[in-house]
């Protein structure tokens, strides 16, 4: 009877690979335990219809996405970090010979980047430390973004170097333009976009990694009060 139930279950199960083997092995062990305690018929009756149980193991696409949101957020964070590398390279190339502004700036960013990297890799491997690092990461990103937005050292020196280099380049290409203003605007855009973007991304990552969901009871409770 158990063999028949498992055969039916196996036929309708839409799960593959290692997980499939595990599900079947687990239910097989459970059925045999139930049979030892209550008899095969009762064990199979309690398990329910094999086809319905098999179908309930198949997650819907939307559920699969929601269940993997922590990993998706980690991948998004890693992609954003990778996308920032060309900018870091550009800033380094624009630096004046002998100036350490870029090195200081990158050293300033590296603790936050390291924590983000460790946290994302841990979340991808579903290690608890990944979620635990998400809140400290958000705090570090907020501090870093504040320093960059307020143009404090070491961000100030780096963006000053960038503005000077871009001003010189723009004057060569377009002598009639107000190169200084264009470069300053461009530097300001980079500072604001990257800082605000990083804070928003770190906030989203914290929510996804810790499984936080918006509370839905607030409005209802206020209405009752």
């Amino acid at each position, binding site marked *: 009877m158990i063999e028949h139930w498992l055969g039916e279950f196996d036929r309708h199960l839409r799960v593959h690979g290692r997980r499939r083997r595990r*599900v079947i092995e687990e*239910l097989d062990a459970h059925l045999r335990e139930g049979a030892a305690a209550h008899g095969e018929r009762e064990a199979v009756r*309690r398990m329910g219809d094999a086809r319905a*149980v098999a179908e309930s193991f198949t997650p819907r696409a939307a559920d699969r996405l929601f*269940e993997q949101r922590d990993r998706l957020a980690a991948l998004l964070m890693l992609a954003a970090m990778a996308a920032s590398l060309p900018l870091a390279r550009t800033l380094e190339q624009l630096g004046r010979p002998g100036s350490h502004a870029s090195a200081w700036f990158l050293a300033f960013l590296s603790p936050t980047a390291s924590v983000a990297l460790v946290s994302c890799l841990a979340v991808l491997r579903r290690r608890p430390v990944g979620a635990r690092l998400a809140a400290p990461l958000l705090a570090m990103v907020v501090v870093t973004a504040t320093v960059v937005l307020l143009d404090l050292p070491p961000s100030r020196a780096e963006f000053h170097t960038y503005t000077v280099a871009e001003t010189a380049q723009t004057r060569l290409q377009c002598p009639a333009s107000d190169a200084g203003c264009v470069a300053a605007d461009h530097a300001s855009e980079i500072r604001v976009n990257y800082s605000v973007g990083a804070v928003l991304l770190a906030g989203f990552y914290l929510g996804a990694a*810790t499984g936080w969901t918006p509370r839905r*009871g607030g409005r209802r409770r206020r209405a009752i009060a």
Partner: protein
Amino acid sequence: MSASDLRGQIDLLLLSVLVAGPAHGYRVIERLREQSEGAFDLTEGTVYPALHRLERSGLLVSHWSDEAPRRRRVYAVTQTGRGSLATRRRDWAAFAGAMQAVIAQ
């Protein structure tokens, strides 16, 4: 009480049972039945898919235990699962309070 009556609350029940200590599926069902004094007698076909779904969501972890008399899959609540349980408990308390406020009139 059937699984359809408990739709949407099975995750909360399973997390609440497992936060007391790791357990295999068979024991989870027993604990649910005992703690609810027989009211929640869920079938295995309801509990196992839910356990797997919670594990895929990172709220549970599991491993094979080879303790006698037979091999079993043991589930435990993760740190993320504890956070999720706290949120679900708050939501449930708010919901139950609101229901009570309405039906008690």
